[in-house]
């Protein structure tokens, strides 16, 4: 059957902000779906609250709503747009849950909207653990023995029934399995169950037989309406059961299954998708296999595209989301074409002649108090993927793709140290899953451990361990040599084992440049192979490459067009995520529009930039000097763009330039100039701008002297980092001494910067574009929080809402002068602080900033695209963008934090960025725009109920004003001693609550019982008091609106006031276009 003609318009729900468990992969899948459905002539209606997505660019859907993903907002959209169908399976768990809410609330039935892809019944069966288990048993599949319980006594009962610890506890309906865990004893069991019951929105947990140490597999399956099923990819987890698959190193294809076992798993996958009733589209099904008996159990299924399906798409070249969208509107697999081979149909199963490895990227360093043990609840914030001809090549490439400093499996540095490690540490690091475990496997080999012993500690399949053993043995063998004595054949073998030049330089006591030159001289050239879905059985037409060392190089001959390379941002991490991928994708589109050939290099499988049809040529490669330079030279590129991929490509810029790469746009020298304190101060002085008093310290002693010179409070920050890693605001010498070492450790050998901290200053982010002649401000964003909160974590308002026109004029002049002085060609971001009506420059970054997509959405101008064009030599006047456009509507940015994943971490906004994503609220009314941003960031502002208010001493005077406003809005105020007294003294009615140590019920009890609707708690010192953190943690866990700054709380009051007095409307971004005033 061809596509359905009874459907005209289709609603797609996006995944909302980036959070742990839901990253850019859903922008990738959603973008594919939008494109696929538009291509078929459907009217696509999209809603997503995340402005940093490609999918929310106005051209990807017919109507695009950047609105909160809440039941009532989406109902309003449905009422306004009257879609015929809703596709719920492409926006992650968020979209799936919201679709079910819409169904349960009768909204879909009311407006006659059909759910396509997966019906509510199927989603329910796939998501409800108990129903799912029954389905599996009915079709003859095995499951882990388990019981669903709704209370602690019931759970105790279940534990007795299941008989033996450890037991797994999984709360129902939480994202990425958050709140679950493994209990090894009764005490732990009680704790985890209680926490799980708390976190589960339906107060339900599953107590389950523990399959710890079993092998884990995933199957990516697709089905069409003719009941034709195919497996796109099998994935084997390197980390056995016990570690969430999102936190596991995974490998495709499955490595240790015989054909008999694989086919049973394949048949079982089809049986599952049929029984659950996913009519069309993709599903991910997870299995576990007992390595001793072969017993196979079904773990779970996701009746939607997932992080794994994005990985499978990148691993095989089969675009799962695109095909899923087409199947949902009635196509059959055999009616669709395989884009890569062109002649063969999509009804086949990809076969791959390489090995794909994915390694998650963690950021425990940002949540120092959190437990870094890997469990069944996901904690990683990103991932890198690498392709190699063999597992050894693939995993070594992937380790260097992670950008954590590893050069491979070894090679010096923090993770590849040659220092001996004691057995106790090794045993601990191997016995408990953690982010560094793989590096300790090497330490174990070095310490003389056998594969058997490592297996006993880790239960990692011996096949994988032996592969790592071979890498280790190769390293040992090479270490007997020097660069000169190692034979060409062995050198080539080492490269085939995935050893990077940097790694070899370490082993052979040489340096990168020498190794590289020597390798070239010996004719050991990198060869590029195609990802073609078919292991070379058919000709492939899509230039999607990975590097290897083989006989044949498959790089296509030059097309005659000029080629520009774009360096992506690598794995997502806090501080460097989807915003930069957004910019890279725009660069690619811009270059193609101008007739250049775009060559994309990236290692992040979640992204749109690594979709095979985003760029003319795609290289799925690590972003290291060696890998990038090789591509640049072999492709004979005419230039490279380094200012769009965040810090990753910037760190390479100078070395690339030194090796003859033509960096287009702002020069690497200018980029470094902005980082160099002395030179930068000279520039500011020259153009008459001031900055807070500052010094650059090379050691701890010097740092303290300088701190006293500028005077406390001071801001400490390491140089050359993104995301505020190791940044601290310190108010006293004691605090200073507590943290100075950490600041130096972030970038060893680099200086630490010490700035006078401007308290209670207004902070302003300005994004600007310049072609070298003309500079135009894209947008000015005023922070809601006072200076001191990292701009990635701050809520922002665009256009600025409190600054005077005179001040804005001063800001403009300063920005343009800076662009001129730094000879910016492309984008520039400036952070200003305004205190006592005086303008200070905090920081200038002559590159794309995190706020570029937000600004582009707010003004309706594709800033990143313009910037890429400008970098190729185009002029803004020819591109028609010569005047700043101030929107007539308000856009509010709010950040989203992963605190709920890191119990114990301190919940406080500071100079170190800790948010994972962002949302946007747009409205003609500032209060409503703020309320929308809050609703999008979840849980949203309350309009009635009780507010818990407890503030630091400095905020107490304003707290009175705040409390009065809240009382006037109808809220009751609860507080503890200090703040309560202040309020009572000022005559504000307040209910006094016990502090946690003072008895029960305390604030946490009230939060848990749903009696508190908003918590306003501003932290006292740099390190929050235990009580405060318990309250904030409870607020997070129970979806209670939380404000941790006094300015945030005042904005909330404005938002609540607006919600109480005005209608919350919806409007697609296409209708905001042109809603600007030219400056």
């Amino acid at each position: 059957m061809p596509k359905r003609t009874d459907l005209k318009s289709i609603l797609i729900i996006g995944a909302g902000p980036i959070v742990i468990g839901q990253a850019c992969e859903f922008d990738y899948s959603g973008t594919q779906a939008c494109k696929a459905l538009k291509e078929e002539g459907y009217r696509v209606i999209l809603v997503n609250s995340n402005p940093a997505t490609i999918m929310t660019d106005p051209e990807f859907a017919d109507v695009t709503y950047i609105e909160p993903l809440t039941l009532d907002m989406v109902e309003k959209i449905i009422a306004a747009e009257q879609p015929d169908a809703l596709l719920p399976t492409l926006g992650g768990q968020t979209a799936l849950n919201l679709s079910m809410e819409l169904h349960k609330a009768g909204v879909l039935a009311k407006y006659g909207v059909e759910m396509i892809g997966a019906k509510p019944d199927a989603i329910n069966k796939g998501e409800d653990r108990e129903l799912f288990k029954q389905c599996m048993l009915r079709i003859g599949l095995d499951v882990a023995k388990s019981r669903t319980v709704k209370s602690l006594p019931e759970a105790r009962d279940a534990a007795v029934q299941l008989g033996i610890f450890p037991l797994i506890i999984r709360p129902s309906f939480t994202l990425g399995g958050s709140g679950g865990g493994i209990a090894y004893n009764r005490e732990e069991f009680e704790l985890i169950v209680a926490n799980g019951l708390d976190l589960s929105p339906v107060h339900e947990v599953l107590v389950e037989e523990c399959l710890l140490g079993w092998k884990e597999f995933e199957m990516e399956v697709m089905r069409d309406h003719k009941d034709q099923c195919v497996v796109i990819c099998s994935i084997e987890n390197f980390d056995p059961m016990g570690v969430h698959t999102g936190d596991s190193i995974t490998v495709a294809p499955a490595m240790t299954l015989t054909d008999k076992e694989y086919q049973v798993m394949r048949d079982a996958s089809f049986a599952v998708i049929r029984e659950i009733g996913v009519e069309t589209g993709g599903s991910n099904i997870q299995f576990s296999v007992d390595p001793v008996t072969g017993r196979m159990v079904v773990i779970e299924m996701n009746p939607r595209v997932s992080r794994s399906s994005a990985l499978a798409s990148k691993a095989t070249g089969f675009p799962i989301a695109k095909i899923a969208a087409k199947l949902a509107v009635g196509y059959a697999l055999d009616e669709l074409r395989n884009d890569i081979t062109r002649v063969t149909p999509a009804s086949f199963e990809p076969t791959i002649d390489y090995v794909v490895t994915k390694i998650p990227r963690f950021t425990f360093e940002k949540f120092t108090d959190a437990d870094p043990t890997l469990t069944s609840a996901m904690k990683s914030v990103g991932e890198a993927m690498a392709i190699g001809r063999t597992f050894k090549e693939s995993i070594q490439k992937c380790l260097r793709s992670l950008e954590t400093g590893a050069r491979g499996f070894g090679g010096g540095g923090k993770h590849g140290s040659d220092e001996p490690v004691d057995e106790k540490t090794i045993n601990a690091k191997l016995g408990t899953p953690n982010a560094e475990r793989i590096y300790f496997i090497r330490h174990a080999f070095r310490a003389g451990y056998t594969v058997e012993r490592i297996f006993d500690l880790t239960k990692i399949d011996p096949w994988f361990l032996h592969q790592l053993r071979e890498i280790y043995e190769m390293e040992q063998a090479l270490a007997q040599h020097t660069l000169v004595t190692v034979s060409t054949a062995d050198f080539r073998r080492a490269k085939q084992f995935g050893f990077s030049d940097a790694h070899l330089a370490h082993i052979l006591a040489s340096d990168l440049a020498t190794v590289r030159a020597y390798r070239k001289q010996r004719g050991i050239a990198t060869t590029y192979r195609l990802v073609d879905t078919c292991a070379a059985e058919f000709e492939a037409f899509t230039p999607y490459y990975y590097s290897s060392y083989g006989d044949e190089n498959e790089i296509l001959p030059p097309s005659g067009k000029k080629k520009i390379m774009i360096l992506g941002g690598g794995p997502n991490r806090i501080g460097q995520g989807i915003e930069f991928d957004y910019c890279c994708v725009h660069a690619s589109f811009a270059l193609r529009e101008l007739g250049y050939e775009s060559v994309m290099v990236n290692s992040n499988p979640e992204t749109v930039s690594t979709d095979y049809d985003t760029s003319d040529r795609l290289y799925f490669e690590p972003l290291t000097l060696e890998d990038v330079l090789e591509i640049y030279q072999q492709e004979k590129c005419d230039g490279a763009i380094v200012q769009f991929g965040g810090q990753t490509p910037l760190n390479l810029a100078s070395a690339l330039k030194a090796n003859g790469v033509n960096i287009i746009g702002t020069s690497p020298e200018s980029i470094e100039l902005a980082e160099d304190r002395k030179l930068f101060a000279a520039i500011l002085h020259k153009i008459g701008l001031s900055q807070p008093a500052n010094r650059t310290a090379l050691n701890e002693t010097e740092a303290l002297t300088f701190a006293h010179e500028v005077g406390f409070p001071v801001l400490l920050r390491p140089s050359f980092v993104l995301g505020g890693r190791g940044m601290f605001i310190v108010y006293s010498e004691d605090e200073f001494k507590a943290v100075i070492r950490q600041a130096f450790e972030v970038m060893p050998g680099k200086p630490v910067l010490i700035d006078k901290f401007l308290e209670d200053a207004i902070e302003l982010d300005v994004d600007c574009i310049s072609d070298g002649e003309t500079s135009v401000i894209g947008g000015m964003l005023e922070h809601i929080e006072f200076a001191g909160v990292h701009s990635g974590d701050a809520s922002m308002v665009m256009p600025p809402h409190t600054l005077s026109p005179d001040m804005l004029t001063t800001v403009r002049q300063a920005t343009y002068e800076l662009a001129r002085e730094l000879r910016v060609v492309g984008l520039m971001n400036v952070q200003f602080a305004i205190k006592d009506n005086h303008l200070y420059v905090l920081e200038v970054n002559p590159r794309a900033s995190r706020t570029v997509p937000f600004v582009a959405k707010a003004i309706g101008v594709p800033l990143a695209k313009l910037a890429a064009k400008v970098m190729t030599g185009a002029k803004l006047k020819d591109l028609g963008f010569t005047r700043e456009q101030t929107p007539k509507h308000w856009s509010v940015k709010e950040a989203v934090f992963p605190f709920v994943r890191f119990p114990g971490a301190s919940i406080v906004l500071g100079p170190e960025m800790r948010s994972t994503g962002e949302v946007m609220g747009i409205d003609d009314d500032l209060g409503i725009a703020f309320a929308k941003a809050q609703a999008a960031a979840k849980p949203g502002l309350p309009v009635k109920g009780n507010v818990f208010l407890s503030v630091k001493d400095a905020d107490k005077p304003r707290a009175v004003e705040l409390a009065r406003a809240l009382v006037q809005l109808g809220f009751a105020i609860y507080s503890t001693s200090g703040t309560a007294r202040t309020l009572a003294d000022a005559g504000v009615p307040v209910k006094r609550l016990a502090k946690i140590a003072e008895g029960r019920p305390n604030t946490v009890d009230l939060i848990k019982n749903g009696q508190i609707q908003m918590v306003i708690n501003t932290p006292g010192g740099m390190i929050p008091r235990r009580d405060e953190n318990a309250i904030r943690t409870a607020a997070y866990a129970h979806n209670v609106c939380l404000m941790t700054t006094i300015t945030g709380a005042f904005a909330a009051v404005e938002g609540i006031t607006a919600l109480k007095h005005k209608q919350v409307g919806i409007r697609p971004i296409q209708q905001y276009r042109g809603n600007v005033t030219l400056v």
Partner: protein
Amino acid sequence: MPVIPLGSSRWSVFRQALMSPSKPGVLALADGSVFRGLAFGADATIAGECVFNTSMTGYQEILTDPSYFGQIVTMTAVQIGNYGLTPEDEESSGPKCAGFIVREVSPVVSNWRSRISLPDYLAKHGIPGLSEIDTRALTKKLRVDGAMKSCLSTLPISDEEAVARARAWRDMAGSDYVKDVTCREPYLWRADSAENFNAAYMPVGTTMNAPATPAIKFRVAAFDYGAKHTIFRKLVRHGFEVQVFPATATHEQIREHAPDAVFLSNGPGDPAALPYIHKTVTGLLPDFPIFGICLGHQMLTHALGGTTFKLKFGHRGGNQPVKNFETGKVSITAQNHGFATDPKSLDKTGAKVTEINLNDQTVEGLRHTTLPIFSVQYHPEAAPGPNDADPLFTDFYRMVEARKAGKV
């Protein structure tokens, strides 16, 4: 097959030295190209037709599939040998291909069922293997230039000699390979024999797809042209008593056995070079329900008066999409063939094309319009490969049942 006692030395390691490995091997093609790699398995020099297989699992089934007789098989999947071999997964008594080429052979075996490693297995059976070959480059060559006469050697021979040996090999076209792999005498496939592994592999605790054993058992006369054992296993599971006959059995011998149906198996080589089989099958056409697989399908083509032709590089893998015109549905199938039925040649044979391969539109299945006869080019028995076409065995049973009931 020798049994590695698991547990004593849990994981033996098989491989040459990582640095400066000492035992090279060579693959030479008739066009003069030479691939140097590392030797494993037996020490031998052999010649044969070099082909590639795109299956990601199932090297044991491929090695032991008699259809690969005379061929040097290249696996496009890169990590081979990971899970070792087990007697249960044998498709015939030992490996049948002439040589085996992989990108990387596993240094260790990791699977609870494994009893022997790939290098040991090949060495034991005298089959040379070659690893560290750029199998993708080789595959592309075979795709572009076609399956080729080749020589694989794990002995110290020169490139020139290897090329000469490749060129000197008699071509597959026109040769009868079946005689080398068929059984010598008729025999009853023992459904109750433990060594025949008639029970489908199913992990403990999983009961999916447990077949309902039909009430009546039909007797099938199964020609062994180099049959894979899983075909017999599946026939048993689907309600047949299987009497196996050598390829040279005449139609009179079959009639003497008085079977309810006839089965034509897979096998190696050029289907046109087997006139004696074509004649036997022609003799059986009017009187028995017949089901053919692979070479059996090609034998049926010739018996009906059709012809076959050689494909450039064949279909070998587990991901081939086949569309059935009767059901409108696509199955993912396991395939292993270098020849195909010419659809134009079927015009006056009474047979019609029921299935085609969606990759290249070649014939994958045919059915006689009046007689109870059908066949498929692909492998519904899988092993290795997907089980999607398993229902064909049920179809065969139903066809025989209908015939017995006088409905056909």
